[in-house]
């Protein structure tokens, strides 16, 4: 074969005899609402977070339309400020942070370690309802007119902002509980529920990353909860804890906020890295170039990530000495991501590579994440950050990581695990089209923003200098392509849910442990107690040996 096969995989056409799965054991609303099955909870998280992605995405599209002209296009400055804030809040706390750990992590971590469920199934369901309550408060804030402080809630502005600050911070406070509960649950599950033979260094890498993320979530979220509490009290009761005129310190708030929110960046990207590790091995049919490099860099990111928060504040008023220390720790944390990138790339060497939609998303991820990560090293260079911080350069940088990295990995996960979760295949050609459009639309949206930032356009500007208009127009058109790509993807996935061909248990010929069971998996994940014969990345023997 000299060309790359772009057709859909051969799949059995005859309907398999009805197999009991987590999906078809009961169809009632109650069976979903009161389920303690981690797979159903994972699916409910997937639906809830996807809805939030759609909401945040709609805000983003409207914001981009507003920027078609330098002045007012479709909304006034009040609405604009509220909308970019709500876009940030919804995307960060309601989509990005729970998206992969709570949806895919919940679904796959127990299967990948051969467990029947998570360690605390009822706590797991509680986490979902806490998420809903938190989301409800954010919706209440939206209904009350939204918040206009930016997702960072910088004091003292947030203490006096004439908008719905209190319900929003209350919502985020509650969402934090959901994150902590899921985090603890996954930590305990990983420690105590591994099946016989699944040693720490035999776990699939996705489990390692959700484990690392759970540690960060559990340690960092309380600090966010604390600082947002104080913002709420400052706003509601005028306590003035961050009010300079009464002895408070507004810069202290920034330290507290970034102590959480910088590790939160790793909360968002680490699970994405786990997905990418799985995808690259499966579609290269090859062992990961260095398992230990991935594991230790995951833990390195999780811990060193706690010492870098000050790089958000190089011009916010800190001593030169502190800034230099934060500069050097930021350079250290970058190296861990670089190690991962090289390990993924080298994994493909001598593989047997099949180009499918998840691998296309891997390529999008590789390019966008490396590009975004490298601009991260650039903004961590203190002298350069002075010019770039709080401009569109930073906006472009973190969207390359958050959207170009996490969102493409999320899409990779959605396609990669779609056959396992639903038992059906998505249409491969439509997937290629979707992945290409996502990449093109994304690049067109955010690349111009680097140039805007270089030219000195600050972020969160409603009016802008007309010389910036051409770049803004390009960016807006790109956002339409990206928006269309999402609608397209949603469309074919919904159709495939009901009409896709049956997938079989291991359509990708993977060795990772979730593919040992049936698609979709039965209620307790494995019909018999699982026995994992091979290492999850052992491609030296044919797949039939998996069940030897």
């Amino acid at each position, binding site marked *: 074969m000299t060309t790359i096969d772009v057709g859909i995989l051969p799949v059995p056409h005859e309907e398999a005899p009805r197999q009991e799965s987590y999906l078809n054991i009961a169809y009632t609303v109650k069976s979903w609402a009161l389920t303690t099955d981690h797979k159903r909870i994972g699916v409910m998280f997937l639906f809830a977070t996807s809805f939030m992605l759609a909401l945040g995405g709609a805000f983003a599209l409207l914001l981009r339309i507003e920027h078609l002209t330098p002045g007012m296009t479709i909304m006034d400055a009040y609405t604009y400020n509220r909308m970019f804030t709500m876009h940030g809040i919804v995307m960060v706390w309601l989509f990005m942070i729970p998206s992969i750990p709570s949806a895919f992590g919940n679904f796959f971590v127990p299967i990948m370690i051969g467990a029947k469920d998570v360690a605390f199934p009822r706590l797991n369901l509680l986490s979902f309802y806490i998420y809903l309550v938190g989301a409800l408060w954010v919706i209440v804030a939206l209904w009350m007119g939204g918040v206009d402080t930016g997702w960072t809630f910088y004091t003292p502005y947030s203490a006096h902002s004439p908008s719905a600050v209190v319900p929003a911070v209350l919502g985020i406070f509650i969402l934090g509980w959901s994150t902590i509960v899921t985090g603890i649950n996954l930590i305990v599950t990983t420690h105590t529920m591994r099946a016989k033979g699944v040693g720490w260094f035999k776990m699939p890498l996705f489990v390692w990353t959700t484990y690392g993320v759970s540690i960060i979530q559990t340690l960092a979220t309380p600090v966010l909860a604390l600082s947002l509490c104080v913002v709420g009290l400052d706003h509601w009761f005028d306590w003035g804890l961050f009010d300079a005129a009464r002895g408070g310190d507004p810069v202290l708030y920034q330290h507290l906020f970034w102590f959480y929110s910088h590790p939160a960046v790793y909360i968002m990207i680490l699970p994405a890295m786990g997905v990418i590790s799985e995808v690259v091995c499966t579609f*290269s049919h090859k062992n990961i170039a260095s398992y230990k490099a991935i594991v230790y860099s995951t833990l390195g990111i999780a811990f060193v990530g706690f010492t870098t928060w000050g790089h958000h504040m190089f011009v916010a008023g800190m001593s030169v000495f502190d800034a230099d220390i934060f500069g050097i720790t930021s350079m250290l944390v970058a190296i861990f991501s670089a190690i991962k990138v090289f390990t993924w790339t080298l994994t493909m060497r001598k593989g047997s590579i099949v180009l499918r939609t998840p691998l296309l998303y891997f390529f999008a991820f590789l390019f966008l994440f490396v590009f975004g990560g490298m601009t991260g090293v650039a903004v961590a260079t203190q*002298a350069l950050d002075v010019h770039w911080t709080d401009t569109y350069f930073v906006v472009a940088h973190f969207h390359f990581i958050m959207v170009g990295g996490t969102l493409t990995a999320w899409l990779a996960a959605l396609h990669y695990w779609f056959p396992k979760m639903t038992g059906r295949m998505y249409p491969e050609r439509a997937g290629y089209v979707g992945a290409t459009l996502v990449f093109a639309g994304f690049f067109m949206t955010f690349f111009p923003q680097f140039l805007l930032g270089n030219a000195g356009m600050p972020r969160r500007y409603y009016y802008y200098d007309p010389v910036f208009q051409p770049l803004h127009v390009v960016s807006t058109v790109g956002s339409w392509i990206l928006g269309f790509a999402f609608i397209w993807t949603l469309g074919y996935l919904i159709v495939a849910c009901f009409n896709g061909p049956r997938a079989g248990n291991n359509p990708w010929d993977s060795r990772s442990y979730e593919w040992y069971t049936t698609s979709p998996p039965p209620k307790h994940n494995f019909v018999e107690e699982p026995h994992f014969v091979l290492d999850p990345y052992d491609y030296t023997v044919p797949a039939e040996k998996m069940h030897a």
Partner: protein
Amino acid sequence: MNNLLRGWLNLPPQASTYAQDVDLLHYFVITSTMLGSVFVFLLAVYYVFRYRQRAPRATTPRVKTSAPLEFLIIGGLQTLFLGFWVVGASMYNHMQTPPSDAMPIYVTAKQWMWKFSYPDGRASMDVLTVPVNRPVKLIMTSRDVIHSFYVPAFRMKHDVVPGRYYTAWFQANTPGVYDVECAEYCGVSHSRMLGKVQVLTQDDYTHWLEGHPVPTAEGLIGATATSGGDLAKTGRAVAARRGCFNCHTIDGQPHIGPSWAGLYDSYVKVDGGRVVYADEAYLTRSMMDPQADVVLGYKPVMPTYRGILQEPEVAALVEFIRSIQTQPFPPSVTLPRVEPLGSGQPQEPKP
């Protein structure tokens, strides 16, 4: 080459002494990181073609990446990143440390305007006038929320925080008019909180100092500053009104607190044996948080003036203390020396 890359990267003019250095580092960092990204991506694309699947369900050999290769990659990258840090941090330290001969200008930000107060007592709104080729130090504070003073053409930015007095500096190297933008979100008119820096030649600047409108050629704004009297004089009045002279003298005599004469630009021994350089930051910190650095030999009795002194008053006071750096006022009365804390015999005041 510089102009070509600057054009490609869409960077504004390089109108301050450190702007070009920042841009050179920018070119180096961006070029090396982008080459790295492209290399990784092309390598991955090459692998996809080179190692495409040739038989369905083919097995692959177990390849172990050699440890020396891993260490080479990690070591090489870490050296590169630390190289960025060494250059970037030393440049940043230079950009954050005003030269001692810098000319001070006081900046007060409020929603949504900039006020600039000059040592000669004049003040202007939204237009900052400075001479070319002279270091200028901005002493900045905010009256309400956090703002950020950003001049893209100078590659300079610093947050302006209520209750804190930050210094930032630049030295313009080309006469002209440059944009000032607020870079920290500060409310509904954040994007309208714009100003200009007007950099004048030495001749024009002298002309402007004499109170004339500057010639408006070359796109200069031609604004004058309104005079509010000598800023140092205002500061002396503020000190009298706020009761500073109850404890501090301006003739060099120690009293309940240390004298202000000769204080600015000196090194002060404080409690705990540390030595603190008395610059604007020290002076403002001592007003807002007096217990932070208590001068050795004095009691920590000064109350905080946080929330009491208004921002223009602080600027005036600092300017007044600066003005008596070398020319103390002659003593009017001889004050009794208050017994220093924990020291031996009180010293007789010198006649």
